[in-house]
């Protein structure tokens, strides 16, 4: 069994998703236990796969023992292992959170089993994208993840359905761009395997067809990652979708497309060693920097916590393409750490948002006054996540920025250092405004924040225990990833393969 871990990482969530309706129909009481134990098992496998990568190096798995280029290849290396581990962790933690959330949510999601099916399929797609070793399998998993994402977003009601429809249209156009890109590569080389492409492509890099395919791939993956200016779908989908779905979408799902950009740039197109790719990476760096500033500025302008989080996602997600564009080992380590850090931080913030929605019936920033008295633990989690977003030590957000700044100055991108520092300041502006409301300002007389408790009993814990547990796991994770970032960089991220395409 141990030898088949890479394929099991994909098969377990896939089979769980397919079996879930049957389990729910026959033994409704067992549904949750079945789902959670499957996701926990998958998480354990992800840890084992990661350990294998650290001790024995990259793991190439051939489906059915068909060697590439004929067979399908799954690859676990330092970067994909990190993404898989993050996706598996987030899937489990969010499954822990989701049940209590839906039980208390007044808007009431009717088709809960369907939600869990789509959610698990989304996890399948994310893990599959991370592991895929050929570019068409990557497309298939991208679409599995995206289609289930459209579905879960639409479960938030009428507004969400419209947001999901726009997301679907843009996402599908992005997918056709991606497909055109791989069609052109296939026409030029006759293969779809990434390892083989990296050998065949260098002499062809000057040809217009490869240039066009690079553009199409960047457009496609850029739209899916919500890279500015291709982010139009994101804010509405994040605002109206159901909280647990968005907690996964904004964390694991968005990361994996940035990861796909890394795979293409360094392991297919040769990274900075190829003039054409170096140019593409430079453009990627500009767009990412623009995204960081745009997202932060727009986040400051928002009055609603949900929408603020959506714009802050646009900003934070752009750190990963920025690290990829810089292309030094330190910057790549920063990008990989951001995959971990932002997933936990934004996941935690969305969970707190769900808690606010249940307990205070508002996500309006002005109405959060006095929240620390009603929800002390959530407020504490909010403070830690906010520190991580701003980048204060010892949270993981600080070490992300530190690695990126180190990478940018090594590679001679002084202006990127400026962008990173400015972004930290802008993040401080909007997160301190929230913390001020939560901790310092007294609630106004007759303010609704202090009195309504929703469906929750006034006595007892501020939120159901599974929800609090999920948040606290992530808070501990944020601190642990921050304090342990030196160890992670040394032992895991140093194994990230730039395939000779790092900046000189």
């Amino acid at each position, binding site marked *: 069994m141990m030898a088949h871990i890479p394929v099991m990482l994909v098969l377990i969530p896939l089979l769980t998703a397919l079996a879930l309706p049957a389990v729910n129909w026959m033994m409704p009481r067992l549904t949750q236990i079945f789902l959670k134990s499957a996701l926990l098992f998958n998480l354990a496998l992800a840890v084992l796969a990661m350990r294998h990568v650290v001790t024995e190096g990259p793991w190439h798995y051939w489906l059915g023992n068909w060697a590439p280029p004929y067979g399908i290849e799954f690859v676990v290396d330092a970067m994909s292992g990190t993404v898989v581990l993050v996706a598996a962790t987030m899937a489990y933690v969010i499954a822990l959170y989701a049940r209590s959330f839906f039980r208390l949510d007044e808007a009431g999601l009717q088709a809960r089993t369907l939600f869990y099916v789509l959610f698990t399929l989304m996890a399948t797609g994310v893990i599959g994208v991370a592991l895929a070793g050929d570019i068409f399998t990557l497309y*298939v998993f991208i679409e599995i993840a995206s*289609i289930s994402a459209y579905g879960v977003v*639409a479960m938030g009601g*009428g507004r969400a*359905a419209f947001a999901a429809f726009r997301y679907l249209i843009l996402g599908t156009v992005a997918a056709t761009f991606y497909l055109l890109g791989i069609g052109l590569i296939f026409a030029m080389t006759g293969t779809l395997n990434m390892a083989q492409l990296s050998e065949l492509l260098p002499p062809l890099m000057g040809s217009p067809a490869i240039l066009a395919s690079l553009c199409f791939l960047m457009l496609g993956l850029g739209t899916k990652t919500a890279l500015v200016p291709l982010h139009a779908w994101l804010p509405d989908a994040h605002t109206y979708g159901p909280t647990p779905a968005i907690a996964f979408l904004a964390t694991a799902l968005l990361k994996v497309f940035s990861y796909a950009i890394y795979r293409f740039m360094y392991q297919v197109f040769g990274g900075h060693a190829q003039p054409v790719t170096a140019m593409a990476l430079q453009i990627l760096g500009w767009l990412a920097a623009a995204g960081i500033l745009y997202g932060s500025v727009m986040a400051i302008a928002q009055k609603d916590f949900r929408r603020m989080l959506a714009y802050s996602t646009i900003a934070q997600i752009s750190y990963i393409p920025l690290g990829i564009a810089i292309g030094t080992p330190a910057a790549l380590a920063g990008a990989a750490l951001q995959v971990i850090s932002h997933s936990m931080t934004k996941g935690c913030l969305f969970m707190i948002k769900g808690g606010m929605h249940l307990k205070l019936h508002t996500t309006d920033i002005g109405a959060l006054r006095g929240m620390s008295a009603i929800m002390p633990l959530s407020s504490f989690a909010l403070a830690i996540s906010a520190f991580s977003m701003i980048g204060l030590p010892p949270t993981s957000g600080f070490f992300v920025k530190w690695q990126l700044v180190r990478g940018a100055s090594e590679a001679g991108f002084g202006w990127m250092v400026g962008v990173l520092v400015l972004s930290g300041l802008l993040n401080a502006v909007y997160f301190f405004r929230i913390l001020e409301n939560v901790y310092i300002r007294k609630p106004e007389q007759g303010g609704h924040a202090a009195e309504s408790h929703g469906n929750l009993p006034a006595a007892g814990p501020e939120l159901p225990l599974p929800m609090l547990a999920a948040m606290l796991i992530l808070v501990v994770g944020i601190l642990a990833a921050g304090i342990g970032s030196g160890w992670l960089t040394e032992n895991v991220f140093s194994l990230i393969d730039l395939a000779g395409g790092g900046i000189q």
Partner: protein
Amino acid sequence: MTAAIFFSYVIFWLIALLYVCGFFGMMEHSHLVKKLMAMNLMQTAVILFFLVLGQKIGGVTPISVPGLTDLDAYVNPLPQALMLTAIVVNLSTTGIALAFLIVIKKHWNTLDESEIMRRMDT
């Protein structure tokens, strides 16, 4: 000579035209069903592109003719196999989009994008 090269690629120009039609149709129309139809045009154009890549005039199905091992006589089966998957993906996106349209129509009682955008802001 130039004309010959142009006409040997004419099928690709037509596919590109179909793709661009889809793209602009999607941008231009404010009616959601028309947007969806334009999106399908784009998807179909990509499928045709892949199929033409594998096509050969007078090509035969691989393996089926006994004793024929000449590579140039075969139609490349790989693009067709890939597009079988892509067609399934297109089917599911179209299906889920139509389901969204039903929900949107029920909730907003219109399928006009600019109208819904206007109401969403207020």
